[in-house]
């Protein structure tokens, strides 16, 4: 029987998708709209139990387009909101994901990646949606995408995703993969006081002075909530600082530049990267998601063989952590990027590299995970030649 109890700190054996749902509740999520899709369905199932217990709302919409619309509406009315899906559903969400970007509506979109394109491999893992997360919706826009590697991280990064969305008034994508989503691990859940919870900044000026899209020193304007006295216009059209549609060049450019600036000036806060034994390494693995686990094991085994291998694990994929990768290229360390696609992050690494060092790739798209031995074989091949 499913446990009906609310999230509690302590040690438990849970699944990645369940931990994500619990992270959402812990972060203060009180609205979920979604549509069933493998391998993400445990997230809505879990939240359909928890949300009504805490006076939140769970609703199963008619499709993913509607789910995305509903979470934006709920966020504008003041609720922290989320949806969860997988590849085909993520494709449908792209339309309103762009709306959340331009109208600066905080929300969290979980994509538990499965094999694609199209219906693809519903029950098999892949990491093929990395570029879709970045560029899936039309038009030039910044985005934040996080990628957990463990069940605990499904919990903590979900909280982070909510925090970033509230702080920067932007949609945040949590790119999980099927392995992390369905894996069960022992998790030591932190006490509520042990993690930070960020809530959106609301306007404090009198309503008649309120400019909903005004530039601030932080780059993010305080957000008026429907029904709280700050009546303003929300639109997907390019708008001026009052929220009204504009076609004036100077207003268009300053608005779009601010959208980029609010993310690009806070990379210190947004980019989460973990480095293992990188300093003395001759070869550094750059990995994310479930592949980072295999990469870690490969690193440990390579070290046992006397090979100087390090690992840089990316928890933030977008904005791409360039400032962490660039020093590795300058230090002339060989880089190996194993990933379950044909080279979506290695492409970014190569873009950063600019010919300073060698960037190797290890790609797998057969619906199975990349095993440590496969990475180790590639390391040996490179370092023992």
């Amino acid at each position, binding site marked *: 029987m499913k*446990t*009906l*109890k*609310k999230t509690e700190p302590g040690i438990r054996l849970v699944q990645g998708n369940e931990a994500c749902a619990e992270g959402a509740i812990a972060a203060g999520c*009180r*609205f979920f*709209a979604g549509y069933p899709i493998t391998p993400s369905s445990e997230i809505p199932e879990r939240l359909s*139990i928890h949300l*009504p*217990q805490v*006076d939140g*709302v769970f*609703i199963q*919409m*008619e*499709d993913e*387009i*509607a*789910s*995305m*619309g*509903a*979470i*934006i*509406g*709920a*966020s*504008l*009315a*003041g*609720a922290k*909101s989320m949806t969860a899906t997988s590849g085909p559903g993520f494709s449908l969400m792209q*339309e*309103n994901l762009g*709306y959340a970007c331009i109208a600066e509506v905080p929300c969290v979109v979980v994509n538990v990646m499965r094999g694609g394109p199209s219906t693809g491999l519903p029950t098999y893992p892949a990491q093929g949606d990395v570029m879709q997360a970045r560029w899936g919706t039309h038009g030039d826009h910044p985005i934040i995408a996080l990628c957990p590697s463990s069940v605990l991280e499904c919990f903590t990064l979900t909280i982070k995703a909510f925090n970033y969305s509230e702080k920067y008034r932007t949609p945040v994508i949590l790119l999980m993969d099927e392995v992390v989503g369905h894996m069960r691990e022992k998790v030591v859940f932190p006490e509520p006081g042990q993690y930070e919870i960020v809530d959106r900044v609301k306007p404090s000026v009198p309503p008649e002075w309120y400019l909903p899209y005004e530039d601030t020193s932080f780059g993010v304007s305080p957000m008026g909530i*429907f*029904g*709280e*006295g700050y*009546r*303003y*216009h*929300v*639109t*997907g*059209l390019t708008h001026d600082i*009052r929220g*009204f*549609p504009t076609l004036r060049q100077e207003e268009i450019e300053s608005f779009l530049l601010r959208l980029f600036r609010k993310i690009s000036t806070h990379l210190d806060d947004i980019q989460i990267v973990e480095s293992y034994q990188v300093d003395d390494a001759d070869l550094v693995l750059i990995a994310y998601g479930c592949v980072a686990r295999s990469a870690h094991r490969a690193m440990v085994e390579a070290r046992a063989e006397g090979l100087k291998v390090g690992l840089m694990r990316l928890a933030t994929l977008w904005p791409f952590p360039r400032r962490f990768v660039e020093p590795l290229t300058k230090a002339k360390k060989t880089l190996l990027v194993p990933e379950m696609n044909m080279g979506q992050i290695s492409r970014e690494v190569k873009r950063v590299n600019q010919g300073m060092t060698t960037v190797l790739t290890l790609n797998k798209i057969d619906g199975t995970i990349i095993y440590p031995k496969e990475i180790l074989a590639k390391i040996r091949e490179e370092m023992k030649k």
Partner: protein
Amino acid sequence: MIEDRPLIYKYLRHDKKFPHVWCPGCGIGILLGSLIRAIDRLEYTKDEIVLVSGIGCTGRLPVYVDFNTLHTTHGRALTFATGVKLAKPDLKVIVIMGDGDATAIGGNHFIHAARRNLDLTAIILNNSIYGMTGGQYSPTTPYGQKATTAVYGTVEPSFNIAQLAGCAGAIFAARGTVYHVRLLDTLIEKALQKNGFGVVEVISQCHTHFGRLNKLGNQVEMMKWQRDHAIPVEKAKKMTPEEMADKFEIGILVDREAPSYLEEYNKVRQRAKEALSLQSAKGSKEESESREVSDKQ
């Protein structure tokens, strides 16, 4: 309606640059007037009204009025409205859509919103054509009529919006025209008072495209057409199908009561909390029993 001017003025956004986007003679402004009068009569405050719209000429309506206004993506207005209403049930959420917006790209959302019976009022302005994009045929363009994408006449049968709403589960479905403006005021007022999903279809003219392409004359002649072809529901019941062939009904087509989604969802919350307290009571009982056992040992 000179006497309405101070009233309309009270609700307009004066810091928004006018003029508006609509062609002179368009019916959308008449609908906006009706909506404002209905809201004013029901004494809603500006803060509790959320006006949600999609894309198209009709989608531009909310920007001119001083409520919480939300101009969403094409066809998706009802989905955004669903989120707003569920997150803050105290708000009065009104959704304004065009015919293509509501029944083509947003058709799925429309029938599901009706089925769910969430407390929303959907007002659909039906001008039989896509106006903003230049006069392409919509799901409500009558069979045989011309459009810029149907220069030989459309061969698709059209949707009856109010009937569709009723069949999909709307507890209130009505049809009015921008000619019968007093009736329209009443219909919108009634729809706003319903505790559930209410729909008002508003027949309007697009003389710029539909009228021009089909040689129906200017806005005045198109409004005369509305006057001559609209039959009150009660009268229509007494007429034969032949007599009704080129006519349409106006008035209230569906008016019934059913528990709204919010009422139903509150039951879910109640059950969830009961299940939780039951389980934690059971858990603590088991815990104390096992403690007793260990004490005895």
